[in-house]
């Protein structure tokens, strides 16, 4: 769940009043820092130093993982939703003998045909986001912030991951300066790091960032479950945060089994939303 601000004075979550260290400036704007403050540098390195390196020993190792379809099937079965195969790649979901949804080539019925068409065209998606005053990255923009990948179901952010490349850390130096990002394509499998390190930050992101993800999905008509890619410079602030993409075909698995963190049951939220959408 997103970290709640304790008051409108913008006191930094997790810090007691009067704490002089790393206080964010006071602002009236939701989640925004004062415009004259410089943009935080090394957002990725800072995140790694603060949230990842201290828990590096908790990284999940490669294990036998279920498929996204299996995860969804289990979640549906828990709700006594029967899954019937129609033809290869297409299933219908039945509850008490009534079709309440389905899955077709990886997409549930929580994705409308209209949404599918919009999301298939990056420019169309940008048009929708801009219409709703949702900040989005321009085509070809260079990314320098922290990449987040959220999964929104209905009107809720169910899971948020920070995606970082493999890195080296110099204990002698410490802090963000100790982090050296590696090229993910050149990751040494022998060192045990995955090509992308997915960190569960669902509890760490502010409600403003959660809302940004939810708003991005809601800007697309008939879309009730999707992944959202964001670029942020702080987990608390919306300043310079942009939506990079909305993906109706986002993989559930990294949310369930991230490299670091507890993981979130996105499949369960999808199954619940399917029931809600059927209004049974």
């Amino acid at each position, binding site marked *: 769940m997103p970290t709640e601000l304790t008051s409108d004075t913008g006191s930094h979550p997790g810090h007691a009043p009067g704490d002089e260290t790393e206080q964010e400036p006071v602002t009236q704007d939701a989640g925004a820092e004062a415009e004259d403050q410089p943009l935080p540098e090394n957002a990725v390195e800072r995140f790694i130093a603060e949230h990842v390196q201290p828990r590096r020993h908790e990284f999940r190792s490669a294990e036998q993982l279920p498929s996204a379809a299996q995860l969804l099937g289990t979640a549906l079965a828990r709700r006594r939703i029967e899954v*019937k195969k*129609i*033809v290869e790649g*297409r299933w*219908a*979901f039945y509850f008490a003998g*009534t*079709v*309440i*949804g*389905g*899955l*077709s080539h990886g*997409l*549930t*019925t*929580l*994705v*409308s*045909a*209209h*949404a*599918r*068409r*919009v999301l298939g065209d990056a420019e*169309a998606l940008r*048009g*929708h986001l801009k*219409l*709703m005053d949702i900040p989005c990255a321009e085509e070809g923009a260079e990314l320098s912030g922290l990449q987040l990948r959220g999964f929104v179901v209905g009107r809720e952010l169910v899971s948020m991951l920070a995606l970082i490349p493999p890195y080296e850390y110099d204990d002698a130096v410490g802090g963000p300066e100790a982090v050296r990002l590696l090229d993910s394509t050149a990751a040494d499998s022998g060192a045990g790091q995955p090509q992308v390190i997915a960190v569960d930050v669902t509890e760490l992101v502010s409600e403003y960032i959660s809302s940004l993800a939810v708003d991005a999905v*809601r*800007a*697309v*008509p*008939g879309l009730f479950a999707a992944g959202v890619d964001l670029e942020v410079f702080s987990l608390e602030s919306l300043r310079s945060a942009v939506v990079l993409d909305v993906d*109706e075909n986002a993989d559930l698995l990294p949310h369930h089994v991230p490299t670091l963190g507890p993981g979130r049951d996105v499949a369960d939220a999808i199954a619940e939303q399917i029931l*809600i*959408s059927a*209004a049974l």
Partner: protein
Amino acid sequence: MAQTYFPASAPPPPPRAQRPHVELGSEPSATERFIAEHIEPRHEALRRWSSTLPHEELLQRAARRKKMTIKKITDSNQLFFLSGVVVGGMDGVITSLVSHQARRVSRSKAMTKRYLTASDVPTPKGKAINPTEFSRAVKYLKSLGGPVTVKPSSGRASKGITVNVTRESQLRQAWQAAMAARSATSESRYLIVMEEYTPGLDLRAYVVGSTVVGAVARLPLYVVGDGISTVGSLADAEISRRGPNEYLKGRQPEVTNAMLAPLELTRDSVLPFGKLQPLSAIADTTRGGGLAVDVLDLLADELKELAVEGLWAIPGLGAAAVDLLAPSLGSAEGAVVLDVNPYANIMQFHYPAYGEPRRVNDAVMEEILERASR
């Protein structure tokens, strides 16, 4: 009593010709019975629509009535807002009530059949065959042992459909017609569906959520013989009669000998007095002179339930037209679902040739709002 005075030079006006009373044959079809019972008695009461709104505009007006605002991203991509929140949209002619899966299913009659069958919704037995496998089609015709309907698996607007095919020679013609109906936008995997021919009244129900909000019987262009007039003159008179109906005006065919040939008629044929003669085998309401007659209040509850079951068999489909064939309006016995079509134009429910107009557009918008609130 005043006497009517006619100057010696002017002949008296001829008595107005009465429309012949329809004489049904020994085994009238469900369509012919419906025409005789429900249309002929009120033949002159054809609706006169002085102006009409197209499908898209009907939906837009309903959206505005419900206090939604509409923003166009492009001509084919529109969003519906309520209090600043996106509640739905339109992608071409379909709304956001149509899931991606439902759209893909509806593009193939063969796939639609599979979903209907999986949900135990009665639908004619049939299969989809590759157009290059005509010999398979011949075998299948023989194996079914009765008349078949041949139609493209994808495609709309009654194109390429042939009914009551019984012989190989007919099948060959029907096959060619189905292949010719393939449009440039068809998917590369183009199939032809053969299914048992089920006679019945052609019905189209518009289902929104779990309610039938509109229902029309679709009738082919027909004439009634008077023993004197030719088929051509009867057809021309009928088409002319429809002129004041703005909805029907642009949807009439040119009745030619080629059109009448499958019926073994020509424009010069004279029909016996009272003979009801459809001028096409199927009710083409798009360009074939077919009529859509409102029957919502006449439709049995069990037929409405069947239509709803048809819609619900397609996952993630909140609104669509469900096409049925039914032996009668009063019962679902023997009725089948032919197709479920989210692309259906709602105009024929708003502008029926006979009967009451139905506000399908309002029902669609209400459903959009209701789903957005879930």
